[in-house]
C-alpha cells in the first residue's frame, strides 16, 4: 500500500514544481504594467515570508505571531548596514540575515522554553518590544521618522527596478522552498514533526528537542530576515510601525495556514490567495474598513472549514472521489488471522523467524513480501 502510491506521489510534485517555476518566471513578461509587476513582487515577498514562517510553524507546530519582528530586524539591519556602515547593498543583506540568525539563538533560547499559548504570547511580545525599541532609539533607527534605504541600483527606472527585484525574490523563494523540502523529507524533519505531535514523547525517543527547535528557528529567522532585508532594498522606506507589526506576522500565519502548513507549496498558494484577496478587497471596499472585515472573514472561514489548508482540502476531495472509504479495522477475524499466519510461516519455513530476528537486530530483511 505504501509502495503503490509512491510513483504518483513523485510525479505530481515534480510536475507542480515545473509548472510553478514556469509560471513564476514568465510573469514579468506577461505583466501588462509596472503596477502589476510590483504587485507580483509583493506576492513573492509574502510567499517567501510565509514559507520562512513555515519552517517553525509547519514542522514544530509552534505558532509564532512574531515573525514580523524578524523580517523587521532583517530590513532594519540591512538598511543600517548600508547607511551607517557603508556596506554594499547585497553584502549588507547577507550580513544582516546572518546577524538576525545569530540573534535568533538567544531569542529562541528564551522563547522556545515555553509551548503552545505561552509561546504565542512571547512571540507577540517580541514584536511589541522591538517596536518600542525601534521607535524610541531614534538616534540609531531614525525612530518614527523612519529610515530611508538607498537604492541598490540607483540608475534604474522604476519598472526595471521592479523586474530585477522580482527575480531576486523568486530566487530567494526557490532557495527557501528547497531548504524546506530538504528538511521535510529528512530525519531531522521527522524529528521536528514528532515535536509538533508530542514534544515529551519525542524527547523520550531520543530526539534532542530543544536543539532541533532552536536550529529550525534559526533557519527560519535567517530566511525571514533575508525576505525582510530584500524588501527593504526594494521598498526603500522603513517605519517601525509597519516593520514591527503584529499584522505582518499574522498574515504569514494566515497564508501558511490557508495553503496548508504541511505542504511544501502550502504557503506559496496561501500567499497567492491572500495577495489577490487583499488586492481585491482593496479595490472592492476601497475606502471603507470593510476590507478588514473581509480579511477577517476569510481567515475565519479557513480556520473553521479548512483547518488543514486549501491543498489538503483539495487533496481530500480528490481522494474521496477516487477512492472508496477505507477502514482501519482488520478485515479478518482473529481465527482467520491465525490461520493466515500459520500458513505463511509454514510456506516460508524458518525464514519468517529469521526475518524478524534480523529486523530486530537492525539488519536488513531479505524480503519485503509482507507489503504486497
Amino acid at each position, binding site marked *: 500500500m505504501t509502495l503503490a502510491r509512491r510513483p504518483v506521489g513523485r510525479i505530481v510534485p515534480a510536475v507542480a514544481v515545473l509548472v510553478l517555476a514556469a509560471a513564476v518566471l514568465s510573469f514579468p513578461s506577461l505583466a501588462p504594467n509596472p503596477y502589476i509587476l510590483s504587485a507580483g513582487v509583493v506576492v513573492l515577498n509574502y510567499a517567501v515570508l510565509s514559507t520562512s514562517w513555515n519552517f517553525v510553524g509547519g514542522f514544530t507546530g509552534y505558532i509564532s505571531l512574531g515573525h514580523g519582528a524578524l523580517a523587521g530586524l532583517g530590513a532594519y539591519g540591512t538598511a543600517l548596514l548600508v547607511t551607517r556602515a557603508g556596506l554594499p547593498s547585497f553584502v549588507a543583506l547577507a550580513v544582516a540575515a546572518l546577524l538576525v540568525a545569530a540573534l535568533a539563538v538567544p531569542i529562541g533560547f528564551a522563547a522556545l522554553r*515555553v509551548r503552545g499559548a505561552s509561546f504565542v504570547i512571547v512571540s507577540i*511580545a517580541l514584536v511589541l518590544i522591538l517596536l*518600542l525599541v525601534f521607535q524610541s532609539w531614534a538616534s540609531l533607527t531614525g525612530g518614527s521618522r523612519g529610515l530611508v534605504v538607498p537604492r541598490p541600483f540607483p540608475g534604474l527606472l522604476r519598472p526595471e527596478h521592479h523586474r530585477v527585484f522580482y527575480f531576486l525574490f523568486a530566487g530567494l523563494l526557490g532557495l527557501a522552498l528547497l531548504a524546506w523540502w530538504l528538511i521535510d523529507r529528512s530525519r531531522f524533519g521527522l524529528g521536528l514533526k514528532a515535536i509538533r505531535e508530542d514534544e515529551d514523547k519525542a524527547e523520550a525517543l531520543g530526539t534532542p528537542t530543544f536543539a532541533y527547535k532552536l536550529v529550525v528557528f534559526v533557519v527560519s529567522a535567517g530566511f525571514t530576515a533575508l525576505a525582510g532585508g530584500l524588501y527593504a532594498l526594494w521598498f526603500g522606506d522603513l517605519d517601525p510601525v509597519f516593520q514591527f507589526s503584529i499584522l505582518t506576522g499574522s498574515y504569514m500565519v494566515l497564508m501558511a495556514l490557508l495553503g496548508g502548513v504541511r505542504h511544501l507549496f502550502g504557503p506559496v498558494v496561501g500567499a497567492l490567495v491572500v495577495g489577490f484577496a487583499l488586492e481585491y478587497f482593496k479595490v472592492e471596499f476601497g475606502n471603507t474598513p470593510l476590507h478588514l*472585515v473581509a480579511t477577517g472573514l476569510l*481567515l475565519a472561514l479557513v*480556520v*473553521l472549514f479548512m483547518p488543514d489548508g486549501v491543498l489538503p482540502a483539495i487533496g481530500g476531495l480528490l481522494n474521496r472521489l477516487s477512492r472508496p472509504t477505507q477502514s482501519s479495522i482488520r478485515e479478518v477475524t482473529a481465527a482467520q488471522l491465525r490461520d493466515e499466519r500459520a500458513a505463511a510461516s509454514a510456506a516460508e519455513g524458518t525464514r519468517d523467524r529469521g526475518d524478524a530476528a534480523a529486523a530486530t537486530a537492525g539488519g536488513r530483511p531479505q524480503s519485503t513480501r509482507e507489503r504486497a
Partner: protein
Amino acid sequence: MPSGALLFQSVILGLLLGGLYALLAAGLTLYFGIMRVVMIAHSAFLILAAYLAWWSHSRLGVDPLLSMVVTVPLFFGCGVLLQRLLLARLRPVTLTMMSVLLTFAIAVVIEGLLGYVFTGTQRRIQLGYGSASFGLFGARIAVVKLIAFGLAAVALAALYLLMKKTTFGWALRATIQHRDAARLVGIETDRVAGYGFGIGLATAAVGGTALALDTTIYPSLHWHWIGPLMAIIVVGGLGSVPGAAMAAMVLGLMQSLLQIPLGTTWAQTIFYLALFATLAFRPQGFFGGRLAQRF
C-alpha cells in the same frame, strides 16, 4: 530626582491604572487558563464596549455606566453564541492554535466594522465630571478613574467567587479538562462552555465601559492593549484570576513609576521584561501557578 509629591501622585495613578488592567486581564485569564482559548479578540470586544458606551452617551445622552445594563447581557449573549457557533467547531487537538487565529479574525472583523460604523476618528466621552478630581494628601484623584477602579474591583470579586465557589465554576473547568468525562457525569458541556465564554465577554463589557470613561478610543486601539494584557496573564500565572489581578496592579504601578525617569515609551517595556523574567524563572507565573502542566 522626582519630588515626593510626584512620586505619590504616580503611585496613585499607577494603582488606578492597575485596577483597570486587572479587570481587563481577568477575562483573558478565564478563556486562557481555564478554557485553553487564546482570545486575541478580547481587547477588540473591550473597544466595542467602549464604543457602545460612548455612543449611548453622545447619541442617546445616557450615562456610560448605565449603558452596562445593556452591554453586559449583550456581551454575555455574544460570548455564548461565539463559543457555540464558532469555537466549538474547532478540533480539540488544535484548539489553542486555531483559537488564536479564529479570534484574531474576529478581532479584525470587529475593528473593521467599528471603523465602518463609527469611522476611524478618535472618540472620547465628554462627561460633565470628566476633569473633576479631589485631593488626597496633596495628590489629585480624578473621579472618572476612581469609578473605573471601583467597577474593576466589583467585577473581579464577582468573577472570583463565581469560579471558585459555584458548581458552575467546577462544571466549567471539568468541561475543559475532559469533555467526554464531563458529559458522562451529567454536565451539559455545550451550555457550560458557552456560558463560560459569555462571562469572559461580560467582563469585557464592564472593562470597556470603565476604559471609555477616561481615555480616547479608536477602532485599532485594541492592538495597543493586547501586549500588556497578555504579559499580565502570563506573569500572574495562566488561569489564576487573583494572580492576574496582582500582576496587573504591580505592573500598572511599575509602569507609572518608571514613566518618571524613562518616559512613556520605555516604561511600557516593563511588561515585556516582566514577561521574559517570568518565563525564565517561573514559567508557571509569579502569583498563581496552580496548573499542573505547561501548556
